[in-house]
């Protein structure tokens, strides 16, 4: 007879009968199951690592909403997500193979890919260029030419870095007609807010909620003056994409679906979802909801106005490549399909999530 504390099979010497406790049966079954990888594999979620562009903002809403709703789990994705410190750093980490997938501005990806770095965009969300010059609201400056004689703060390591001189020159502003001040990362914002600079070049919808409080501003969009750099999207290294295509496809589709869900008037829910997981950052839940609202018009270009969120257009990329070639940041001769793929978006998953029926 086996005692209640038995954890395994116990041979009874008196009768030679083998008694097995219930716990031993359960443990044995579990051990057998674990020793059969094909059994566990059928149930285990695919592990994927994701590097974001920056610390928490409204642009991360689809990830946090998807987590809250359990959409990643349902899609069989076990996601490890890490905050970033700039799009360039994220692209470099993806290229080095430190993460499977990245969320960042696609401008730096274009520069990297043009230089032979094997990173491909797998989804484009903010497809209209959101970069612009913040100028004081009362200034009345409306075109790049209005910036002549002004101090412009920008970041040489951000997506605008390689393009700022090209853009100004293209719009009839010589380099010596403006004072360009390079300040890295988030440190550039206080320089503009404390009036040490006349203008700030950065992502318009992302920074507008803070600018509205610190220094009410209007903006001059680069896209309105001939430079449409693709905004936020997702990328993966070519070989990672080959190895983990199925899992990456499910992840990207969930995110595209979640974006569609959030942009359908659920900006408050999006902002709250990010804030619930990442309180104490630069933005309140309301600011993040505002970012989502402000970003919404940038999700569509003329070429993608009837395409689902995430789908990228060859026409848009052609324009970007032309600008990159003119700015001499990529060599001539690359083609749009070198930069992006639309194969990672499963319309069925996107539609189900968008309609909250996944």
């Amino acid at each position, binding site marked *: 007879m086996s005692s209640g504390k038995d954890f395994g099979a116990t041979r009874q010497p008196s009768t030679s009968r083998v008694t097995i406790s219930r716990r031993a049966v359960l443990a044995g079954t579990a051990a057998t199951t674990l020793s059969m990888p094909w059994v566990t594999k059928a149930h285990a979620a695919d592990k994927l690592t994701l590097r974001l562009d920056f610390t928490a903002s409204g642009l991360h809403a689809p990830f946090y909403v998807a987590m809250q709703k359990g959409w990643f789990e349902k899609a069989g994705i076990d996601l490890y997500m890490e905050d970033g410190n700039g799009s*360039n750093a994220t692209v470099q980490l993806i*290229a080095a193979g430190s993460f499977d997938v990245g969320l960042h501005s696609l401008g730096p990806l274009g520069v990297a890919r043009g230089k032979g770095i094997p990173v491909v965009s797998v989804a484009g969300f903010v497809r209209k260029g959101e970069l612009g010059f913040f100028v004081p609201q009362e200034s009345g400056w409306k075109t790049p030419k209005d910036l002549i004689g002004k101090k412009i703060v920008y970041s*040489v390591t951000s997506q605008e870095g390689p393009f700022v001189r090209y853009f100004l020159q293209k719009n009839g502003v010589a380099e010596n007609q403006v004072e360009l001040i390079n*300040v890295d990362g988030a*440190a550039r914002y*206080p320089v503009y807010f404390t009036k040490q600079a006349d203008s700030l070049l950065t992502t318009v919808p992302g920074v507008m909620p803070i600018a509205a409080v610190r220094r009410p501003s209007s903006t001059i969009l680069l896209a309105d003056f001939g430079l449409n750099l693709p905004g936020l999207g997702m990328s993966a290294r070519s070989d990672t994409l080959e190895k983990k295509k199925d899992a990456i496809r499910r992840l990207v589709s969930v995110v595209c679906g979640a974006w569609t869900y959030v942009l359908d008037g659920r900006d408050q829910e999006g902002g709250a979802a990010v804030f619930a997981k990442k309180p104490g950052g630069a933005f309140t839940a309301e600011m993040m909801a505002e970012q989502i609202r402000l970003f919404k018009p940038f999700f569509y270009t003329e070429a993608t106005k009837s395409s689902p969120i995430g789908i990228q257009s060859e026409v848009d990329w052609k324009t970007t490549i032309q600008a990159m070639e003119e700015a001499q940041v990529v060599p001539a001769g690359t083609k749009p399909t070198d930069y992006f793929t639309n194969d990672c978006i499963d319309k069925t998953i996107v539609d189900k999530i968008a309609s909250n029926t996944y």
Partner: protein
Amino acid sequence: MRKLDVPSWLREPPSWLVLTSLLVLWQVATWVFKPAPFLLPDPISVGRALIANPTMYLVNAYYTTANTLIGFGLSVIIGFGLALGIVYSRFLESTVYTTLVAINSMPKVALAPLFVVWMGTGNTSKIAMAFLIAIFAIVIDAVLGLRTLDTEIVDLGRSMRGSPLKLLWKIRLPNALPSLFAGMKVAIGLSLVGVLVGEFVSAQHGLGYVIMAAQGAFDTPRVFVAILLLSVLGTLLFKSLEFIERRVIPWHVSQRAVSH
């Protein structure tokens, strides 16, 4: 037993030989392991990047060097002044010294973005960063040098009616010089680091700016050129201080050992 006849160049290899060997090893490693050029370029590509635009690197190196020397110079002058105050005044010892220790424990790199807001985006914020990072080494070593003094020599100086100023000039200062130079040799490297930190946060010129701009354009060879130039610059500054040290305190035991 016969002694192994090792040639002198192998026993004490000259620095140029060590550095050349490292470069060769680096080149061979890139041929063998073939890392992606954006992760680790080979020395030949780095050399090509330098030759492509030497003037640009020289101009930027000039800005970094100038700011380093100004920050370093200020840290020596103010640091030595503070050390004198600490040695001669108990009040300053308990206030300034403690404050300096507290400041030194702060993560000074975290102050760099604030310096930009407080002092602007020009050279001042870089010089301030260099000064702040370097001054502690100067003060600590200068205080040590000024204090480490045989009391009998001081008594002898006093018995010969030496004024406090003369005692300082003739006895304390020469005695403190070896320690002061030790502190300066640490501080010159720290000043360079301070300027770089400043340039990383905000700059229009300088080797830190070159690194940031090259990273933004995914131009890794250019990053490596700037890093190599920085190490050359750091070595030159250190060696210059060693040269001055040999001229100023040839009598000190450390210099006599060098000349042997």
